[in-house]
């Protein structure tokens, strides 16, 4: 067996590693800016005690980054085949952990989802993402994709849905929503696009149902359907039963949305969606986060206020400024150009992961690669979307940027398992 550097020197995908390091570095700069205080001494590392330093997010983030790099080494040391082999075992362990967590965790910010190990707090839900990705990839690789049986699909759905259900039970809805990202990966692996379309249509109908009175919506839809049928009567008349079926489904969805919105969603969740539709309602209450976040980003202008010059983030107008709302610091201090660079970094990383995934020979590797891209993409979408008022406020971090050990560790592991699998592919080639 080669030594670790020798093993990976030529075979690891350096582009991804470079993008990862860039994002973590830029992320740390923004965490530093967000948790910077003018009272901090000029040279904090030499003039403050360890205990004092530990009260700064930026200092703790250094520790998280350091440990994340250790984690990288650990991930790479393991024989990549183990990820395939151990996937189900890890999945089982994780399920057990998710089940017991609410019973042994102390409530923090309204949810019992954090495990405390001395000074370190970990959220099992974070790690559920890559473990589920591994298990799902293993399962997809093990079945005959061409002849997917209904049973296979059911197993896959259950495999994917079990962790989020447990996470919702622990009242961490945001983390649970992330599992929707798997649909994108499954789509690449052959899932019927109709499922994606139905979900997209459902989202559109949900938004329309909240914006437009129900009857207007139904009337509009019915009229459109009738016009479409009438215009192409000859070709479409055979589809009348199908059209009626679609019509019935849409009616059901419109009322279902209403029921879902008013009876299933919790109060604060309903308000977050209402704020998305009408941002100026209740600017000091539920709308505060979004309003202040938009003010912070919007005040950045083209080139930003400059490093450490942001006023909105610095003076606590934006809540959770170093964690979920870290993008506000990017937008305020680096302006539109900085935001574009950040979005560009994400696009670069997602593109590269897609490229890496596509070059995998095994279904397991490719599926896992797409899971990684989809999970990062979902976080990117929702997190930045909520800071600029395009998505409801969901408490999920921006990968590699947000402060926090759990999320950095989980994304690092997620990404580097893929790189390890990818490197093994090349090693296999070299061997033969």
């Amino acid at each position: 067996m080669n030594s670790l550097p020798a093993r990976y020197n030529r075979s690891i995908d350096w582009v991804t590693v470079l993008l990862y390091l860039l994002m973590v570095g830029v992320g740390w700069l923004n965490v530093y800016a967000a948790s910077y205080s003018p009272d901090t001494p000029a040279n904090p590392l030499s003039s403050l005690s360890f205990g004092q330093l530990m009260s700064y997010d930026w200092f703790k983030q250094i520790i998280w980054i350091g440990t994340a790099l250790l984690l990288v080494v650990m991930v790479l040391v393991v024989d990549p085949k183990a990820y395939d082999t151990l996937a189900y075992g890890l999945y089982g362990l994780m399920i057990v952990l998710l089940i017991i967590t609410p019973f042994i965790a102390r409530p923090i910010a309204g949810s019992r989802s954090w495990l405390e190990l001395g000074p370190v707090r970990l959220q099992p839900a974070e790690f559920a993402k890559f473990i589920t990705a591994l298990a799902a990839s293993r399962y997809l690789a093990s079945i005959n994709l061409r002849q997917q049986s209904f049973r296979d699909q059911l197993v896959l759905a259950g495999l994917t849905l079990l962790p989020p259900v447990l996470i919702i039970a622990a009242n961490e809805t945001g983390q649970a929503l992330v599992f929707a990202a798997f649909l994108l990966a499954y789509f690449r692996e052959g899932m019927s696009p109709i499922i994606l379309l139905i979900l997209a249509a459902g989202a559109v109908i949900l938004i329309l149902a909240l914006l437009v009175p129900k009857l207007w919506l139904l009337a509009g839809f019915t009229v459109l359907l009738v016009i479409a049928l009438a215009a192409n009567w000859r070709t479409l008349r055979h589809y009348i039963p199908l059209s009626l079926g679609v019509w019935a489904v849409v009616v059901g969805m419109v009322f279902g949305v209403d029921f879902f919105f008013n009876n299933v969603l919790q109060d604060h969740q309903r308000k977050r969606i209402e704020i998305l539709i009408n941002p100026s309602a209740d600017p000091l209450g539920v709308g505060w986060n979004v309003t202040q976040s938009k003010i912070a980003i919007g005040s950045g202008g083209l080139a930003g206020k400059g490093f450490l010059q942001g006023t909105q983030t610095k003076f606590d107008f934006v809540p959770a400024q170093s964690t979920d709302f870290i993008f506000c610091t990017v937008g305020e201090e680096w302006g539109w150009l900085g935001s574009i660079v950040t979005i560009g970094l994400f696009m670069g990383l997602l593109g590269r992961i897609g490229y890496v995934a596509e070059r995998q020979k095994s279904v397991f590797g490719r599926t896992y690669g797409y899971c990684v891209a989809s999970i990062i993409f979902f976080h990117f979408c929702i997190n930045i979307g909520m800071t600029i008022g395009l998505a409801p406020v969901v408490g999920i971090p921006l990968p590699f940027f947000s402060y926090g050990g759990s999320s950095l560790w989980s994304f690092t592991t997620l990404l580097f398992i893929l790189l390890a699998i990818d490197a093994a592919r090349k090693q296999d080639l070299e061997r033969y």
Partner: protein
Amino acid sequence: MQYLEGRKYVVQAIFLAVALVFATRLFYIQVLDSSYKLAADRNTLQRIVQPPYRGLIYDRKGQILVQNTPVYDLMVVPREVKQLDTLRFSQLLQLPLEEVREGLQQARKFSRVKASPLVQNLNTQELAAIQDNLIDFPGFSVKARMARSYNTHTMAHALGYVGSITPKLLERPQYAKYQPGEFLGITGLESFYEKQLMGRRGVQYRMVNVRGIEKGAFRGGEYDTLSVAGQDLHLSLDSELQGYAEKLMAGKRGSVVALDPKTGEILAFVSAPMFDPEMLSGKGMGNRYMELLNNPEQPLFNRPLMATYPPGSTFKLVNELVALQAGVVTPNTPFACNFKLVRCTHRHEYPSNVGIAIKQSCNPYFYQVMRATVLRGRSSNRFEDARLGLGEWRRQVMKFGLGEKLGVDMGNEKRGLVPSPEFYDKRNGYHRWTYRTVYSLSIGQGEIGITGLQMANVMATIANRGWYYTPHFVRGIGSGGPLPEYQVKHTVGVDAQHFEAIVPGMMSVVDGNGGTGNNASLADVGISVAGKTGTVQNPHGDDHATFAAFAPAQDPQIAIVVFIENAGFGGSSAAPLAALVIEKHLRGKIAPWRHRWEEWLPGPADRFIKRRKY
């Protein structure tokens, strides 16, 4: 799995679409829409305004009239008030319990979290009495500021007063920089020269965090400015002369305006009844203001600027000048004192020239003078002839600064009225009036309205033989001169020789044997006064008395108009009052034999009237 290979492009397209939407949205809120930047500044920037030191006001002789003294406002933040013992608190403030309760209610109405004044204008002693005990009353604090204090009890109308800005004014663009509750000049010179007196505010920008706690200067104080004190005003008013004139006007309604004809500077400006300028400053100012406002004598009414009266016989001088300039009469033109035209004031010698006519104030003479000006046969239609003639007459009259605002450095000046042909067209109908309709104008009666200041300016013009500077109160701003518009000489379009022709007549009014203004004679101290009496018919009661004059006749240093409402014949009250003011100004003292005037003149107007026995 080749058939699924294409799906990677769908996934990539979804990624790119989201990135594109984000980039566009970010471009919109960061670059295009500037409202977020404003909102950010509103969030974090606290402007701390340092009010500047308001300029002082000095009189003609350098005596300080208006200055600043510190006063204190008791402020209250309703939310922080805890378990207030209103009874003990009202005892401490020495205010009725009801007033304290009402004040607190008002404050709560304004804002629960912002400080609003509960008691304003406490002086240092009043503050000392309560300050130590304030610690027992959370939510109350003391705010110091500067208020006006007065070194004089006179010229309240000229000085004006300072008060907190009204919500209505705040909406006007020129007051955009004012904060609610800030003080500014409301009337008089305080208002007209607000910009100069105000100075420049100092502004400090402080950054605050979400809890309003200061986080230091914004950009290291780069945008902070220091306040710049306002400029001092040096008035042309002589507080000694002013005080003297006010004393003489006591108990009456009317006005006295004295000008330095050579410069247009206003020496004295009396609006009777007077009030003490201190009434409109300090604690209880609001109540005193309401008292003044509801006083039936209307002390707040600025009569020299705002009260327009028919000028009476003093206006005959203007008519004569217009006729002389038009060339329709000469100084030696005789007109008979024909009672059929208009009733004359009294039987007198034959007005064989303008001198005698002025001395006797002969109504029929000036009836005929103005008729000569108006009816000149410009049209064969006698109605049209009168129309054209009156129009030309009006143009010349208005050159004297009548019927228009003079442009004195004080607001609310009235234009007065010099009726136009259109005025009579409207009232009587087109071509339905002739000179017979408007002849009252020839003796300064009827539809004409002139303010005291305008008449004083006419006197200054006559004194100068044909020119004037716009009357003004302020001869110096800071270390500079008056405003530029008061350094422009205006001519009235009448040749100097014509003025010379009427001055002898005006001198004989005062010093001639049997002149109507003999009471104004200062010949005994070697001062020749040129003047003209007036008695203005008043449909509401007794005639108004007026006297307009300048002195010395050949080297005028003062032009004066005295107007006393309901005092009858101008020669008996207005003339001697004017003489005393002239003597005071020119000699600085009053001849001993005229001290009896000084004792007799102050007091109500009705005792100047000799009631006719029917």
